[in-house]
């Protein structure tokens, strides 16, 4: 399947043609263990995922709330490493060609060396990489490497990001722009902030890139709201990870619940 991996642009065009938005679920690879994690990803794909957002676990994830951090710890405890992370992505490529993005803390890239990391990422079948703690100020160095291996370098835009910075970020970014919905860290929330809607339209006016909103998107109505605000996709993380955490003892139930929640979320992307 490796030959015809779908690009982000192709995927966003595809869902748009269907009158939908993109549903992009997240998982920490290896949470709670390699094989279960793979089954979770398969469940995402079978139940409407248009693209996948994967996280490599990190010991000190400053941009993440308790849900993702707990997932990181479960994954690390199960023996996940960077090398095994890339093996994991190869296994995903055995059953799907939808775009796969990687959310990673920069130290993992730095330790391996950017060139080696991006090479391994490309070989594994990844589409793009977002380093959570690498703002444009420090990212210049990675852009050439991403280019060399034909990977998208994805960046975040937040409510605190000025218009001037937005221009710069949009220029450096490819694939899609990750719009941070809240002032805060990752984590499920019951309400979506009003400011999220304003942010999406502000970002929209500064960039032609596809937009996907993440952080705190945890209910079907959140998905509907961000899409109607002009986003092209919605990234759902903690709400799904909570299902994993609550059902560690019963994998069957976990996968069933994940499957039906994914269908609800995907349904919410249909206008």
């Amino acid at each position, binding site marked *: 399947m490796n030959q015809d991996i779908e690009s982000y642009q192709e995927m966003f065009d595809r869902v748009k043609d269907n009158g939908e938005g993109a549903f992009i679920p997240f998982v920490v690879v290896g949470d709670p263990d390699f094989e279960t994690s793979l089954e979770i990803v398969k469940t995402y794909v079978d139940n409407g995922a248009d693209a996948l957002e994967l996280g490599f676990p990190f010991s000190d994830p400053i941009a993440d709330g308790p849900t993702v951090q707990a997932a990181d710890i479960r994954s690390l405890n199960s023996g996940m490493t960077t090398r095994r992370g890339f093996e994991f992505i190869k296994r995903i490529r055995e059953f799907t060609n939808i775009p796969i993005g990687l959310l990673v803390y920069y130290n993992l890239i730095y330790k391996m060396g950017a060139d080696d990391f991006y090479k391994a990422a490309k070989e594994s079948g990844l589409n793009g990489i977002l380093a959570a703690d690498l703002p444009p*100020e420090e990212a210049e160095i990675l852009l050439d490497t991403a280019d060399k291996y034909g990977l998208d370098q994805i960046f975040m835009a937040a409510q605190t990001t000025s218009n001037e910075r937005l221009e710069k970020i949009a220029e450096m970014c490819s694939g899609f722009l990750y719009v941070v919905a809240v002032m805060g860290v990752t984590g499920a929330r019951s309400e979506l902030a009003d400011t999220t809607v304003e942010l999406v339209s502000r970002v929209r006016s500064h960039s032609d890139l596809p937009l996907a909103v993440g952080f705190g998107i945890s209910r079907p109505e959140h998905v509907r709201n961000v899409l109607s605000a002009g986003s092209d996709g919605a990234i759902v993380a903690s709400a799904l990870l909570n299902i994993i955490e609550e059902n560690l003892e019963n994998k069957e139930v976990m996968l069933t619940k994940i499957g039906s929640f994914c269908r609800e979320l995907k349904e919410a992307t249909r206008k």
Partner: protein
Amino acid sequence: MISKGKFGKYGGVFVPELLIPALEELESAYLKYKDDEEFNKELDYYLKEFAGRPTALYFAENLSKKLGCKIYLKREDMLHTGAHKINNTLGQGLLAKYMGKTRLIAETGAGQHGIATAVVGALLKIPTEVYMGSEDVQRQKLNVFRMELSDGVVLPVESGSRTLKDAINEAMRDWITNLDTTYYLIGSTMGPHPYPTMVKHFQAVIGRETKKQIMEKEGKLPDTIMACVGGGSNSMGIFSAFVEDEEVELIGVEGGGDGIDSGHTGATLTIGTEGVLHGSLSYVLQNDDGQINEAHSVSAGLDYPGVGPEHAYLKDTGRASYDAVTDKEALEGFKLLSETEGIIPALESAHAIAYAKKYAEKEENKGKTIVINLSGRGDKDMDLVAKEMGVEV
């Protein structure tokens, strides 16, 4: 950002996009006020009247005789709250006030920086919340009480290893969530730009005083300056005045824990490798994948798997050298200074004393004039030292 905050290749701003505007705001406020007359007048007033500056540069005659060197101690241990930490918390606390922030947050390991922040919060009437690993809350109950007495709120952190690095993670998350109102008061020369530069600036008073005092007493610069290094603020504070004086040897002493090869160590510069932690590129203790290891030292202030980026730069350029002493050696140093001079040092500072003893034993170092930064006093360590010595208090 106006500056990239680099020391050679080290330092930088490795933080999520959300934090960048806050760091920009902080950088511009720092640059605005650091040379502001009114700000400095107020800071100098508090440093003198509240904290107790200047501190003495004390000639440790008994220890000097014993070790065969001329040893001076920079008495930061005599400051209010018992350590150099107050220099920085007064500086940043005032900055927060000038910026109009209405809430201070801080991280603390053993509690020293937490206390120094809480008292400044009380002084300047800014509500203060301190993140502290729940493991540390248990180990340092007395310090938790001290913070609470100064009206600080201690927030136990249950995530990760439940120690200092997790308290920093949690404080950063809080800051990301509450940027408008909140000032994050980092306690050492670490974190993203502008913190390493700014904390050095507020601690540089140690070096300035030392230089003036040693010139008065000796009529020349010292041969060697020694200081313990955790995050690196007391050492950077004293080093800063002497970096340009190439003839002065600068030595940083890390917490070796059970030994640098034991796997239980805080000797980040001695055995660590380059990595990005808590917002800057520096040396870190990590595994082959870049996952951060837990540090270990008998001294909570040296128990951190990272180190300030400027120290990484000074190490690589050879301007300063770094070595570690073990927990056991530090305890010997603790006893040595207590017995010879009647000065009970903090366990952190005891590492520098222990190193001075080893240093003085070398033939080529006999007779040298050495300044040791005695960064804190040992009151906080009484329970632990008694336990280590098998004494019931």
